[in-house]
């Protein structure tokens, strides 16, 4: 399936984080690029979702559903903040 962007996984991110995340700012741990989660590159391949940096292409997030929980790997991120922390 073609990649989409972070806007399309808002529901999954609410499942994982318990709140709206698409407007939250992210920082790539590899290249330092900073952008809203909505602007990240998203590959949806069952059973997992892989999120990549739009600048350098490295994996920044992986989310895998397991029954009624979700495994979340954020090791590719240097930060994941609230939009009002950007000011």
């Amino acid at each position, binding site marked *: 399936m*073609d990649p989409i962007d972070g806007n399309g996984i808002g529901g999954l991110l609410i499942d994982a984080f318990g709140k709206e995340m698409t407007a939250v700012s992210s920082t790539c741990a590899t290249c330092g690029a900073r952008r809203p989660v909505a602007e990240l590159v998203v590959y949806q391949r069952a059973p997992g979702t892989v999120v990549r940096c739009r600048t350098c292409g490295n994996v920044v997030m992986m989310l895998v559903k397991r029954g009624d929980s979700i495994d*979340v790997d954020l090791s590719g991120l240097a930060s994941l903040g609230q939009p009002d922390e950007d000011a």
Partner: protein
Amino acid sequence: MERTAVSGRLSWQVAAVVSVTWETASVATIQLDPPDWAGHRAGQHLDVRLTAEDGYVAERSYSIASAPGEQLAITVERLEDGEVSPYLAGELRAGDELELRGPIGGYFVWEPGDGGPLTLLAGGSGVVPLRSMLRHRVNTASDVPARLLYSSRGWEDVIYRDELGQHHDGARVSYTLTRSRPPGWTGHTGRINSALLAEVAWPAKTNPLAYICGPTSFVETAAAGLVELGYPPERVKTERFGATGGR
């Protein structure tokens, strides 16, 4: 990996299908009546879940086509190789039920208080969330000026053609047709480029706010073009749905 419990804050519910209206030969607008809907913001999504008899589950996220306060609706383009869209835009009928949850998303949204002027750029079915914004603008009697540029393969593929053809106060709609054009077509032709954006988008000095939705290649070209025209990147909001318009 860190494991978190599902919060359940976004619950699935079964909505009744109120109506199915064909916008083009392959695009349908589906009006929905969910039992528990707190209302949405223009540009937000909802998730749809289909469950097969063997238990196989497919979920997709769709932009909400209706404006806040209107009967909830999504507009779906049927992709022949899709898992979900051929059912939604093909099999689904008024009176059926559909499992959904929402509203979802806090980035690609517009409220009258966010201001403008609005530069809206749509590629194919990327017009759906922008239509919600335009309707919201009219319904709230917003005085924010708006311009929509809609890139479509052909005139027969234009979604909401009659509605967009009506004049909205202060909103200008222009089209560019990329593959075929009707006889006598005097509008723009070909894919979006810098020259076309310079002609149709609000000049950067007016401090415009831009929303771009469409296939990835369209969005990348359009966003880079606006930044080239002097738009600050943080005033250019984008939403991409893959290479072929899959939604």
